[in-house]
């Protein structure tokens, strides 16, 4: 899935769309080919026409908002009758001075650093387990994948129940081992961890499927050859399976990174950013600022930071990881 390589590969060798010479043919009139020299400009027009609907939508709902967000961050928030006023870097200044912003950023980074590797490791393990000849494979696969089908809202409500101090499932189970009841979501030290657990529970099964697909495409000959040479299972996994799974890992990594910034449903349901902002994730803070306090300019400023972060991560992946992927 090397996108960069794809683009650079350039021409497919397509000779272009032969078309009769009448530009006034209108938007959707494609005329059957004629013998003779192909008209290259027809290819360009047709290409753009096909792309146009999607391009318009993308421009209006992705590209324009991105640019507008950046512009808005340099203006103040219109309030009531007062219009927006150019304030230069004031919003950025306010943001740097805002301890809650740094908290949210910090939280999100910790959250990402915790969920991503754990989810990937777990899903890889699950895939290897389910791929093998273990008893009850079908049940396991079902069990791992089911959380994916549920909405995060539903998942969060269920886990909210479990985290209830005292009679929630977790405290009940721990109580059997003599561990005292704990206020999981109300304690500043454990609240974020609880959300991390919920996120991992939800996503691991989803990534498992992709690993499963990749594993099943691996040639058994590889395993046989390695066994003949006396390699241990762990060695085989580390030196053969894992590298071959890298393309899948890249795909899963992108998804996991996006999810760790995009998915804040559980914050809304379980903690609403508390206690004392320890579970405030960046997008949640943006939502609060933008739709609870109606400070749209500040929300735009925060969004710029989020966009920048996502852009850096995207670049980082394509440039850095792309080089290390081994293609069959």
């Amino acid at each position: 899935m090397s996108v960069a390589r794809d683009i650079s590969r350039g021409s497919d060798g397509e000779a272009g769309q032969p078309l009769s010479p009448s530009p006034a043919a209108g938007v959707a009139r494609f005329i059957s080919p004629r013998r003779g020299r192909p008209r290259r400009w027809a290819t360009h027009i047709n290409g753009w026409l096909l792309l146009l609907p999607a391009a318009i939508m993308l421009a209006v709902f992705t590209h324009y908002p991105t640019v507008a967000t950046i512009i808005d961050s340099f203006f103040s928030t219109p309030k009531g009758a007062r219009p927006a006023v150019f304030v230069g870097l004031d919003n950025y200044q306010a943001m740097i001075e805002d301890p809650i912003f740094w908290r949210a950023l910090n939280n999100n980074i910790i959250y990402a650093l915790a969920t991503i590797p754990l989810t990937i490791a777990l899903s890889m393990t699950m895939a290897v387990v389910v791929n093998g000849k273990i008893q009850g494979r079908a049940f396991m696969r079902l069990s791992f994948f089911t959380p994916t089908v549920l909405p995060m809202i539903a998942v969060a409500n269920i886990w909210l129940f479990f985290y209830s101090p005292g009679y929630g499932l977790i405290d009940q189970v721990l109580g059997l081992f003599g561990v005292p009841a704990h206020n999981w979501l109300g304690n500043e030290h454990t609240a974020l961890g609880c959300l991390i657990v919920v996120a991992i529970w939800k996503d691991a099964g989803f990534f498992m499927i992709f690993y499963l697909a990749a594993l099943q495409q691996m040639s058994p000959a590889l395993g046989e050859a390695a066994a003949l040479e006396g390699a241990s299972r762990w060695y085989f996994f580390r030196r053969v399976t894992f590298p071959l799974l890298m393309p899948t890992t890249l795909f899963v990594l992108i998804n996991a990174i996006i999810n760790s910034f995009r998915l804040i449903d559980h914050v809304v349901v379980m903690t609403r950013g508390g206690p004392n902002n320890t579970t405030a994730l960046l997008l949640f803070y943006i939502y609060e600022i933008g739709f609870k306090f109606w400070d749209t300019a500040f929300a735009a400023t925060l969004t710029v930071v989020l966009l920048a972060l996502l852009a850096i991560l995207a670049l980082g992946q394509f440039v850095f990881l792309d080089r290390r992927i081994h293609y069959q």
Partner: protein
Amino acid sequence: MRYPKMKWQAPIVGAAVLALASTAMAADVELSFYYPVAVGGPITKIIDGYAADFEKENPSIKVKAIYAGTYQDTLVKALTAFKSGEPPDIAVLLSTDMFTLIDEDAVMPFDGLLKSEADKSWAKGFYPAFMENSQTGGKTWGIPFQRSTIVMYWNKDAFKAAGLNPDKAPDTWDELVTDGRKLTKRDGNNVSQWGVQIPSTGFPYWLFQGITTANKVRLMNQAGTETYFDKPAVIEALQYWVDLSRKEKIHPPGVVEWGTTPKDFFERKTAIMWTTTGNLTNVKANAPFPFGVAMLPAHTGRGSPTGGGNFYFFKKMSAEKSAAALKFVKWMTTPERAADWGIKTGYVAVRPDAWETPVMKKYVADFPPAAVARDQLKYSVAELSTHENQRVTKALNDGLQAALNGTKTPEQAMKDAQQEAARILRSYNK
């Protein structure tokens, strides 16, 4: 495709239908009404019932009652709708959102609509404690509807088991601590029953006011432009709350969830809980033991903040609509209806004359706890309400949660909160 030939009657019938429809539409006023639900029980059913009854009595007015979630959700929805050009006509929102709504230029005062003497005396017939959060700048911006105070519920069986008089609740801060020590049951490391539980999610500032009012200190000024979070009496109040869990160990540690507190009470996880009187009917229906309701314990003073929601009218309503809306609001707050609403939920009926209706008198005679919140009204103060209310209360809430979790001392937490609030309110103090 072949079309059947149009008969000549068709256009005439069509025109007649159109005329009828347009006259029908002209006669019907449609009011959209956003409301939140903050307490347990079949509230949406009750509200829908009221709307239907109102429509029966007023056939030319249609009321579309839309349930919008919590108070927070409803405020967001109403303002979102307003900003996108399609505001609701009426909304029940927190009385404390008054300044925010005025600043957003979203609501209109009632005074201009109260033309007749009957109207004016109706508007004067609400408890003054409730009007404190409903009026500013000499105008009335909200009409009380689902108003409450905090009350203390106690488990009579648990009191008996702990050797306390089951009919007497603790009435001072010290009594709360001594009773709480007896009520807290431990087995090993685990606490199976806490003495007292005061929730601190969602709107901890409200519960906190139940403590500051007992310490005779106010958190803000009437104009909503100044806050006093770092006054010594306030810090003292916070220290008391924090000590309940950290020093006395009779209160669950950390931040306690508002929504699950009633269930914790039913499950006997706590012997005493502080929550809104609006949960009274819920507790009455679901508590598996005899319980009592009392005013909040006193210290140097006594009392509770008022709470709950008012009716607000949004701007841009036509004269016709606002007349219809006023009718609806008056209908919803007649003594009979206020009594009915109070009985069905546990909210405090908002008018003194509602308490004099026969149905309410009988209810109170059968079930005295219902009157506790009303009796507490004379000690009640306005709920925290300022400009940029959401932001200011967030600053206070964050500080309270930090103190309860032990990550900041009460003094530091309140100083930081005051600093943040002062910064937010700076532009309103010019």
